[in-house]
């Protein structure tokens, strides 16, 4: 049976139709009438893939919602939610989603100030029994200065990460440490903490100072003190209230 193997020239249909018209192909194929009656939305012609050059970009929009702003602030403050996501349940509401809904509810009542709304939503949720742990309370000893982070909530891409991403960046962002703390809080290579002065630590009264090892809270003799933040080993945490800490100048 005659045929045309030029897949780059026209569509399957156009080639068959022309072969039939020319009389080269004697019998109409089975699918010909069906294609005639129900053609596809786009004729299947071959197209060469060409790269885009310069600044040309695909015209595909990002899908963003107004609730994403609220979600960004939530994750900034609280890190990833304490409740694990149950994806098997189609009607599952995460902590963040509950927060967002409550926020919108309160917003509709007439409140306009964003920070106030935020705080009130937190309070409302706590009243309902949802646990919300602020990230800043748990990790104060990391010097936020070394981690330069964009803190605009409108930059959703960096902050509205999916809930199961690691909360570490948000944790670092969430604390209220001043950049001048870098001399006062540093960690030696052996893991003991050295701190001098309490100047910047008075920002938040609820801050906890965490000393990795109480017994070696003296000046460490090792010479490799850099003041770089080191991720603390969990078994060394001993949360101590601020005014009771032995802080050496």
């Amino acid at each position, binding site marked *: 049976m005659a*045929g*045309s*193997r*030029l*897949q780059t020239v026209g*569509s*399957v*249909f156009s*080639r*068959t139709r022309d072969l039939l018209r020319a009389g080269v192909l004697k*019998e*109409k*194929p*089975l*699918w*010909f*009438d*069906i*294609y005639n*009656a*129900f053609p*596809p*939305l786009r004729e*299947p*012609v*071959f*197209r060469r*893939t*060409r790269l*885009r050059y310069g600044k040309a970009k*695909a*015209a*595909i*929009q*990002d*899908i963003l919602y107004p609730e994403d702003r609220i979600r960004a602030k939530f994750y900034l403050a609280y890190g990833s939610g304490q409740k694990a996501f149950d994806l098997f349940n*189609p009607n599952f509401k995460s902590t963040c989603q509950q927060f967002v809904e409550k926020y919108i509810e309160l917003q509709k009542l007439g409140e306009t100030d964003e920070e106030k709304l935020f705080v009130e939503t937190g309070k409302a949720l706590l009243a309902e029994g949802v646990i919300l742990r602020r990230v800043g309370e748990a990790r104060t000893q990391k010097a936020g200065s070394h981690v330069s982070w964009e803190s605009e909530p409108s930059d959703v*891409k960096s902050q*509205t*990460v*999916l809930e199961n991403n690691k909360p570490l960046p948000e944790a670092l962002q969430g604390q209220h440490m001043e950049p001048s703390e870098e001399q006062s809080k540093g960690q030696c290579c052996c893991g003991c903490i050295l701190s001098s002065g309490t100047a910047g630590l008075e920002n938040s009264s609820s801050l906890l100072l965490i000393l990795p090892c109480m017994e070696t809270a003296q000046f460490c003799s090792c010479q490799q003190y850099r003041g770089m933040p080191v991720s603390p080993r969990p078994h060394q945490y001993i949360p101590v209230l601020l005014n009771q800490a032995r802080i050496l100048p």
Partner: protein
Amino acid sequence: MAPAASVSRLLGAGVCAGPLRPRLLQSATPGRARPSGRTLASAATPAVREPEGSIDLNDRILNEPLKHSDFFNVKELFSVRSLFDARVHLGHKAGCRHRFMEPYIFGSRLDQDIIDLEQTAAHLWLALNFTAHVAYRKGIILFVGRNRQFSHLIETTARDCGEYAHTRYFKGGLLTNAPLLLGPKVRLPDLIIFLHTLNNVFEPHVAVRDAAKMQIPTVGIVDTNCNPCLITYPVPGNDDSPPSVHLFCRLFQTIINRAKQKRRHMEALYRLQGQEGPGARGGGPAHPPSLGAYPGDRSSPLPEESGSHACP
């Protein structure tokens, strides 16, 4: 199942074993002078009327479905909501996106492409309708997919609807050099359905290009990293998630079975009306048990001679 049919339904053997039997191509043109062997039972007394009647019957059987907009009631099989629940809208990350898939993408949520399900629904309707018509006309359908996770599913789907599948290594020349590889006088598939357009190294499957070469129409599930150009009826959708692939397999299986059942009904109906003679009124189908007995398949009313069938 007839022994000849079972032999020809070899699955997954790496060989398109179906068309091994030499078969005359059943022509779809109704205007042939030579009557088909089926309806012409005995060219007895009405020598003039019988051949014309048989051609007419064949013509009617083949052309009747094309006059209706939705002869096989395809649109009741799925909805945008059911596509969403099966996660058909989830595409790959933006870096994997193929340029020609951009028209079918709704947007990207945190860098993951979301496929526009309105367009998918329209494309899927066309694809399923085409498949149904091909199955109705007794075309050979070949399921192709190279994703190993769903290899078994595709093969069982093909077996359950009485068609063919090829989910193993595709030998070069299987379609283009078929007389050498499969034997002389091999009938090639009339439709190829791709559950996965890419092969295991993320390149377009060879069968896409070869089907275009051999003038075989194709239906394919194209994900955001696939090239939809050469596929006759592309269906933009997710081809990686199990619920999505299961849904598509189920849809194809249902529609092919439905189309074959419709064909049997139509033949029975027209044969009955042919036997009673053209003058006698066709008093309805005499085989009610066979009509509408397909479990899970609502029987659509068959077109009657008298009235014009109102499209559903």
